[in-house]
């Protein structure tokens, strides 16, 4: 049986924070990690540490408590628990946790804001015109 080159890649990518879970890809960052630039990813991302630039994923975005994000974020379900500066698009639901500090315009289908969260920006809700995103 051919054990694909993915094994070698898998070993390398595990160190890059890429973990396969339930057959869906998850890009997972730790508190000391830094991502700068543009990431378009077919899967979900757990963002921690520092993120700057643009992140568009087909799955979910999860920004950890303590993370600093200065980026455009787009995902299906977006859960923010850290500090985020930039536009946020949730194709399904956006959740702001109690420690979230968000500054930027947000566009969502569903929205939940927990007490304690802070938000400064314009909120648009409903079905949005399909932009030339990852789709």
């Amino acid at each position, binding site marked *: 049986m051919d054990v694909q080159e993915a094994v070698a890649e898998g070993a390398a990518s595990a160190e890059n924070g890429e973990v396969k879970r339930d057959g869906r890809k998850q890009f997972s960052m730790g508190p000391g990690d830094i991502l700068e630039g543009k990431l378009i990813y077919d899967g979900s991302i757990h963002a921690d540490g520092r993120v700057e630039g643009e992140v568009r994923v087909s799955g979910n975005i999860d920004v950890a408590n303590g993370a600093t994000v200065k980026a455009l974020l787009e995902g299906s379900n977006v859960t923010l628990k850290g500090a985020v500066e930039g536009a946020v698009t949730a194709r399904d639901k956006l959740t702001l946790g109690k420690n979230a500090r968000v500054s930027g315009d947000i566009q969502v289908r*569903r929205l*939940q804001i927990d007490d304690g969260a*802070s*938000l*400064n*920006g*314009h909120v648009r*809700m409903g079905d949005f015109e399909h932009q030339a995103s990852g789709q």
Partner: protein
Amino acid sequence: MSTRRPGSNGANGQDGNSVVLGPKDRLVGQLFIEGDLNVSGTVDGSLEATGDIEISGGGKVTGTVTAYNRLVVGGGASLIGGEVRVARLTVEDGATFTGRVSMGKAEAKEPRAAEPIAEPVEVVIAEPEKPKAKRR
């Protein structure tokens, strides 16, 4: 034994004043409340409360909302806001929420202490120096 004023329900506002707009109530215009406000009816206009504002049930608010303390938008409620200025904000899943949100202490227009008047600064106009006798 109640020393509470009529209408007082011991809600969060310091003065305990609370106003409720029920499901069949409708307001068009401006409303300012010293205390808390609960809306499960329809409001078209602007709301301002020194305490909390809660839009609950099937409440529908279209317009500007200012809560010096907390704004809660319930799961079946809707806020199509122009400007939303609050200190604390809770939006429950299922709520309809649109608008420009400003949060933070400075954003809620709390009555602020008057700014200290700048002390007049004494202006000393230096006398033109007498031209010194040229040396050398």
